[in-house]
């Protein structure tokens, strides 16, 4: 197996184009597991850890441009104010070691339905910036990025450059159910973002469908019912109805981690609680 180690973004894109058999590796926390289990035998590894451009974040037009190679540990310490939902999700990833190595770009690359970065990116309406040497850069709305179980919209010659996430204009929540209290793959996960500027609601569901997905009908329902102007307390019945709509948007399966029925049930509870917390935060902020 060859080991390619570009030191710049252009070089990385060139290698990607030249070696279609090369597997990009960022933190390696998914890739090394795959190699260990002999699930993949790539002709080469394309190590992205020396590409400085990928390890930086900046703010452009009210949105954070988060380099694909920024690890979770930095999202938590550097971006909890601008991207609270993503930072909350980052806190739940693996163990401290995994949070130091693992990256949001790698999470997107793997595109697992259980990837914890995905629900908050969906709720925030993020866009994935991808690039190729031949065609340059394009942006993909994150909801269109996930194309199937562990499949994404990346072309063979493309790399993920960054993800663009609007700086939070309102409260965000992320909730993840697992059967132990740390270091666990989610049984179900839910992210919520309130966008008071647009009087809109964003959602993201994890581990309860072939891909991470939004609950558009629930979003519109809640956005329409919330008392944006008066900021009256959220009625319990409304929170519950929202929860049920989120659960209805999922299409979960039974597996060794949990039953489909539990996944649906837990999503309804998480969505209800998250909506209540977020709305209370908004009222307090007013």
């Amino acid at each position, binding site marked *: 197996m060859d080991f390619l180690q570009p030191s710049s973004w252009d070089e990385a894109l060139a290698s990607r184009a030249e070696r279609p058999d090369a597997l990009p590796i960022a933190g390696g926390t998914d890739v090394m597991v795959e190699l260990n289990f002999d699930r993949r035998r790539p002709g080469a590894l394309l190590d992205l850890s020396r590409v400085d451009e990928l390890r930086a974040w900046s703010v452009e037009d009210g949105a954070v441009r988060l380099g694909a190679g920024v690890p979770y540990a930095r999202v938590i310490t550097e971006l909890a104010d601008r991207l609270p939902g993503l930072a909350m999700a980052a806190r*739940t990833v693996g163990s401290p070691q995994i949070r130091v190595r693992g990256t949001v770009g790698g999470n997107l690359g793997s595109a697992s339905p259980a990837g914890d970065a995905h629900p908050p990116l969906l709720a925030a309406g993020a866009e994935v910036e991808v690039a190729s040497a031949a065609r340059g850069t394009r942006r993909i709305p994150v909801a269109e990025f996930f194309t199937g179980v562990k499949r994404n919209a990346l072309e063979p010659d493309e790399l993920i450059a960054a993800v663009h996430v609007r700086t939070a204009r309102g409260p965000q929540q992320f909730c*993840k159910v697992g059967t*132990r209290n740390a270091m666990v793959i989610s049984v179900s996960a839910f992210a919520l973002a309130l966008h008071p500027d647009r009087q809109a609601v964003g959602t993201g569901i994890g581990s309860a469908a072939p891909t991470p997905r939004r609950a558009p009908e629930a979003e519109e329902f809640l956005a329409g019912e919330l008392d944006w102007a008066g900021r009256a307390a959220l009625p319990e019945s409304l929170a519950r109805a929202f929860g049920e709509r989120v659960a209805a948007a999922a299409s979960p399966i039974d597996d060794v981690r949990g039953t489909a029925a539990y996944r649906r049930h837990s999503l309804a509870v998480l969505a209800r609680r998250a909506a209540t917390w977020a709305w209370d935060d908004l009222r307090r902020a007013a």
Partner: protein
Amino acid sequence: MTTTQTGVRTTGRIGDSAQRPDGTLKVTGEFAYASDLWHDDMVWGVTLRSPHPHARIRRIDVTEALTVPGVSAVLTADDVPGENAYGLEHADQPVLAAEFVRYEGEPVALVAADHPETARRAAARIRVHYEVLPALTDPRRALDDDAPQVHPGGNLVRHLRLRRGDPEPTAPVVVSIDFEVGMQDQAFLGPESGLAVPAEDGGVDLYVATQWLHVDQRQICLALGMPPEKVRLTLAGVGGAFGGREDLSVHVHACLLALRTGRPVKMSYGREESFYGHVHRHPATMTYEFGAERDGTLVYAKARTLLDGGAYASSTAAVVGNAGLLGLGPYRIPSVAVDAYGVFTHNPPCGAMRGFGCVQAAFAHEALMDELAAAVGVSPVEIRQRNGFVEGDRTVTGQVIDSAAPVAELLQRVADLPLPSALPERPDLLDLPGAVGNTTHGEGVHRGVGYAVTYKNIGFSEGFDDYSTARVRLQVVAGEAVATVHTAAAEVGQGLVTVQQQIARTELGVERVVVVPADTAVGSAGSTSASRQTYVTGGAVKAACEAVRTAVLQRAAVALGRPVAGLALDGDKVVGPSGEVLAGLGEVLGDDAVEETVEWRHRPTHAVDPETGQGDAHVQFAFSAHRAVVDVDTELGLVKVVALDTAQDVGRAINPDAVVGQIHGGSAQGMGLALMEEVVVTDGHVRNPSFTDYLLPTILDMPPMRVEVLEYADPHAPYGVRGVGEPPTISSGPAVAAAVRAACAKPLRRVPIRPEHITGT
């Protein structure tokens, strides 16, 4: 830099928390485990395993595998020179499957190659033609007439029948319960590993992580068709065992490959293979009934227990013995009727695991005690205290308990410990069920408290000739007295090496004690299981030291011209009745070494009556109680264990830190079974053979513990010791399960308790 010495200087003798010699190495990652074994010019062995739970092997074609460059041997059942059979109690398990495979993961062929990856790729090119057969995977069907037969001779491994008192008892209060326990894995951190080195005499030297060298040796000899002198075993660094290393794993395989290739062969499982490479804890289905007076005093107990032994016998018969003979808990019960069954299925083989049959039973009898408490209107603590054993009571097999049985006191101790404070208004996420998963800020969270108590047999029971051998030498080397202790006892992480040192220091008065590697050059030490090594090998080391001391003092008496009575050893000196120094050890011994080898036995135990299960089956009982406090998010079914406190009688704490370590670890393991640890098997296939989905408790799942250690010396045991390792694993889980039931007011008759059970989804 200067360092300051804090605390008291340790004596390193018994009762002192002497430092373990492997401690620093282990925490710094420098300890050499069996997986670190290395030999120049060694080759690697890998195992090809069956993908089917039940199939006939039509043909095995190894030609393609043999052509892979770097491959030095490919072996199948035909290459086993001795008997193709092994097993702890019955040799019913093939070294390599011959005609049938009986569980998913059963070894079928072996490959040796110059690189493990080469060996794996070659193994993938072995063509095994299977005829898949219907599999028996529901143990409840195993004894049906039309069930597939796992072995000729039927699917029953053992039926233990226990009868005592009134055959048709009645009582004013009757409670009953069905309970189910899932399959737990030992999940030792160091997977199976060994290195076999062919020797010039045509024999083989095997370095391996195991629990009992001599029982391994016996089985390997049978399979290799070699006498014991030719098959020598040395213990390699063991990374935990918990019963999972009682059966053979790489042992015979590595030896076969080494003898065939003439090269040292290393075999080392990864985590996934480890899940297939050792036995698990038996899943159990149990039906229990208690009859009692209106005040809760037990009148009778009935129990029916079914243990799934999987495809081979392993230690199922002994586990059934425990589940039957000890399965009603530490309670006085005048009339009992117990039927415990162990059966064959095409599921993964089950065998020994810490707590050995008592763990499963305790979930049932403790849940039922809570039912009884509720039915008669007393507290869970009171119901257990009212019925709990005291010294002098007879157990359900009629055996008189002839040392401390402090059931009531243990419960009182845990009940009297302060309860954790209630959750504050705005709790830290880390203190809530779900933790940083941010699933609740307090909504839906209910607190529950649960109690459980247990007793466990220490040492081997039912008439087994249970002994250990110790060789101790005392000599003066470069002016310093050195004691050397040699046993075949497996240190598996529990601290036995330290205990041996402490005993030798205590008995011989010397500072320096060298414990040489455990191997088969000395007699058997018995198994590192049944919480028995400090008792039995400790007893053997003590006896060997006493023999050495007697011999040395006799020499001194002759040399000094004094009566031997009144002489003693202290440090490097022979001292008189008032401690006065009479001679240096060097003067007495010169260049001679005094060496004694002693085979030491505990009091005999006896087989039980096959019809009634009555008899003095056990040598010692150990008792422990737990109180668990949990917060349960009843809407999501998530659990946070807030406190898990315990009291245990250890007879005598030889090494108090090690005792508390055993209790912490054992408690965590029991809690793991109550809440998350399960090998999920569907239609004979293991669905979660990895630590991604076989969940072990993390530091956020395990609360800090309060541990009350009682020391009621057992007058029949060396130093009064009582086995420590297993009881905490038995009583912690049922206490956690009880606390969860209390928190969510649901019956919850299965462990591990899943969020689905709590939420009814």
